[in-house]
């Protein structure tokens, strides 16, 4: 039985409420940062696995698939969250197979068995009734460890990519680039930070009195220069002008797509395009959980509040004939990225499809 044909379980009310709470938390901005969101999703799925009565592979897959679908429907922009469900589905499949093999022979998988029976068994779940919850708990603990450490393992590679006296350009603020650049600080490089369209952050003193209003990029520049990196902040408009002097471009991504393309904050496409024109290498920092088995973009470009482009104070803003667009994300094709730096090391865009099949099962690509 192929899993995507398998039944999608009706989830208990208890779990639906849990999912609702999770969605509300994300929508209300209580869980910030992709890592935290992904970890919260792991916790959610773990609760569903441990508290439900399902034990067999088919049932568990149905439950996780249902939860994944609900979350995806509610948060279509959070591509990354569904990856957790895909990872778990893959784990259920693997565990099921391992258990099945033990049942027959009482020994581990042999190479011969893998080769002979691979295609037939890959996507099937069999009828064996094993309690998979125990091994799954172990796997979840492992997954959580991997997620938590993924950023630090990417940052561990910083010194291999950033060298002394280089001029690095980055676009906008993101926690992962900040940590990456900070880890590379001993290399004595110089940084150009191009302001993104990021919202201003309000800084409050202890008495919740507003003391400063900074854009996130400015705040990041401030912290980096405190860490000893010489930072120059430029406006996004002058990226092309400085690109000829830049040695490397470092960007973070929202999601890495199957074909090696990236989805990132609005404006990244022009940055990578300029880099490509000057043959400047573009490094994309991609923890593996951001790798999504999708290829197209159409439904995912949602727009944000247009106030970043035009203030509401202007009367043009509400004129019938003015259309203000403020897309949240940008799509950069595979050609524009030189290297993906994942937690398993660097890999080229053309290799990303291979990573996909290592992480997920092909029948789970469509949740």
């Amino acid at each position, binding site marked *: 039985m192929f899993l995507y044909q398998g039944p999608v379980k009706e989830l208990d009310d208890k779990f639906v409420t849990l999912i609702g709470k999770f969605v509300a938390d994300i929508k209300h901005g209580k869980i910030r940062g992709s890592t935290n969101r992904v970890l919260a999703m792991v916790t959610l799925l773990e609760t569903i696995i441990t508290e439900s009565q399902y034990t067999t592979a088919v049932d568990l897959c149905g439950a996780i698939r249902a939860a994944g679908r609900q979350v995806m429907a509610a948060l*279509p922009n959070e591509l990354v969250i569904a990856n957790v469900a895909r990872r778990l589905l893959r784990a259920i499949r693997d565990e099921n197979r391992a258990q099945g093999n033990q049942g027959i022979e009482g020994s581990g998988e042999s190479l011969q068995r893998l080769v002979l029976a691979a295609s037939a068994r890959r996507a099937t779940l069999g009828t064996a009734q094993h309690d998979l919850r125990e091994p799954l708990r172990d796997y979840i603990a492992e997954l959580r460890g991997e997620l938590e450490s993924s950023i630090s393992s990417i940052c561990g590679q910083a010194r291999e990519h950033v060298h002394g006296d280089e001029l690095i350009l980055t676009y906008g603020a993101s926690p992962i680039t900040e940590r990456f650049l900070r880890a590379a600080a001993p290399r004595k490089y110089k940084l150009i930070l191009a302001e993104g369209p990021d919202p201003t952050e309000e800084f409050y003193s202890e008495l919740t009195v507003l003391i400063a209003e900074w854009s996130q990029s400015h705040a990041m520049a401030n912290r980096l220069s405190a860490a000893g990196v010489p930072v120059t902040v430029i406006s996004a408009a002058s990226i092309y002008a400085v690109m000829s002097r830049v040695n490397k471009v470092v960007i973070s991504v929202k999601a890495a797509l199957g074909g090696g393309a990236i989805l990132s904050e609005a404006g990244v496409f022009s940055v990578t395009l300029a880099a490509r024109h000057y043959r400047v290498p573009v490094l994309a920092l991609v923890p593996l959980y951001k790798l999504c088995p999708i290829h197209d973009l159409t439904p995912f470009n949602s727009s944000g509040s247009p106030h970043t482009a035009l203030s509401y104070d202007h009367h043009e803003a509400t004129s019938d004939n003015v259309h*203000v667009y403020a897309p949240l994300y940008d799509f950069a094709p595979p050609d524009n990225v030189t290297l993906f730096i994942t937690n398993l090391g660097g890999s080229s865009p053309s290799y990303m499809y291979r990573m996909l099949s290592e992480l997920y099962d092909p029948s789970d690509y469509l949740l």
Partner: protein
Amino acid sequence: MQVAGVPLIDFTLESLSRGGVGEVILFCCKGGQKIKDYVRSCVEKKAIWSVTMEVQVMMSDTCQTMGDVMREIDAAGLIRGYFVLAGVNSITNIHFGSLLEQHKQTCKKDKGAAMTLVYKKVSWEHPLITSDKPTFLAANANTKKVLMHQKYKPKSTEKSINLPLEIVLNHSEVKLHHNLIDASIALCSPSVPPLFSDNFDFQTRDDFIHGILINEEILASSLYYTLLKGNQYAAAVTNWKTYQTVCHDVLHNWTYPLSIETGLCYQNTYLNMGNHNFRNRNSTLSRSSSVVENVLIGSKTNINDNTVVTKSMIGNQCVIGNNVTIKGSHIMNNVVIKDNCNIVNSFIDDNCIIEENSVVENGTIIASNVVVQAGSQLRGNILESTEAEREKTLMKSTSESTEWENESSGSGGDDFIGFEKTWSDSESCYSSDGSDESSLPDSPIPEDTNIFLQEVIDSLARGYEEKLKNDYLILEINSSRYAYNIQLHEVNFFVVRALLSIPVLADTKNVLSTVKDILKYFRPVLSNYIKTKSSVMDCLRAVEDSCIKCQWLEGKCGQILHLLYEADVVDEDSLLEWRQDLEENESPIANQPSLVKFFEWIEEASEESDESE
């Protein structure tokens, strides 16, 4: 009532839950059961807001205004902490938690701080200002304390503003604001409900603001204001024009993260077609139809060949025929529009059917379940043909079989008629000792004067039937007068108007003798109110008004005046003065034969009396 395809109440609840509110009390004065059912169904569907906050629906048919609601709340002791007061008609993406925190800081500095008003600053040309009541605000620049607050009527011609000198003298820096949108949101201290109870003449929030500013020393309370910044959006739907503007803003994502998808918890069903056109996945568009800009199309809606839609909202399950043009219109659910229709700047409510070749233009408002016959030409008010004039729409039925229901200005839907308030207990996400939310009546309350008139008619009719004592009736009228805040001269006017509108008159065959009877019976009431010369004029004006408006009095104006004259209610001088008025104003009754006859008689009578003297 839907704004951009989402029930207004969903926007409000969603923004409350985003803002970290823990508990909502919805106060309904009308249609409470519907709202209750709706809220329950949402909770069953596990709408996102239902997970994080509790919604309690309260119903009260006796509450007419916000003042009544606040008094009720105070009497029930529902709110004990700081709270947010908002209307169901306001759409906002602000974070209530941080604003409330700010209000508490103000309260620490000034113990009397009662309310912080929330305003959004926009350009002067903004449609929300030009079509709503513009607000003028003077405030202390350092403390943000409101010193003066004034609302103007829409399109008022008043050119000057009086600013008391002491405002400028007593404060080192004064800020004047004129370009503010009032989102009908306010942050309140626990002292607000008792203030409403103590001052029973506060009907609305504006009364409250006004009262507090005038009696600042006596009430020991003060007001503050805050302006929203950058991406924070707040606006209130108060009339059709603001409705249109808010829909536009929602579609253009100014309210981000509130959007057309708000309220739909687990499905994001809209497809973006570019140019701010959105259509539901389940909607069907013909290949030859075209959707130009700012269009929202609901689910299972069918649009056929060669139809052009622009700047419009179309609800769910609508069927739009061939060669239809829809422009700047709002079409609700289950509407059928047949071929070759032309619909411009109009509002069509649920379940309407517009037959072939109809033209609906210029701010026509069609209520639910109406069938417009083939070939009808509906032009709301042709003189004022811009969209801005929707609220003034007249319903002229051109075809006899169509039933028109005149929807008064403002909001028609059921979700609209409600008050709302919330409070979050100590478990809410920001550690406060209770924050609440309550709201203004969002449908424009039926005008006080109309209610007052109805009440007076009722009391008089009852008094006449049951032969009650006139003293009691006077007492009754006086108490309604205070309840509805009616001026004395209006009372005079309405009492006479009511006398001539007692339902008995409509049924009787011999109107004049009944009128005579009534006048005789209510003589003490009349003499109580109609004493001075100006009150006599009020009385005469009321007669004029009744003669125009009541069918049973048609053509009998002169006789009625005669009766009044005989009963010594009116005197000659005022009658003559009134007649001049009539002629100057070209009143439709000025040339009525009965009236002309009456005045001839009067003149003769006065000449006779002169002669006899």
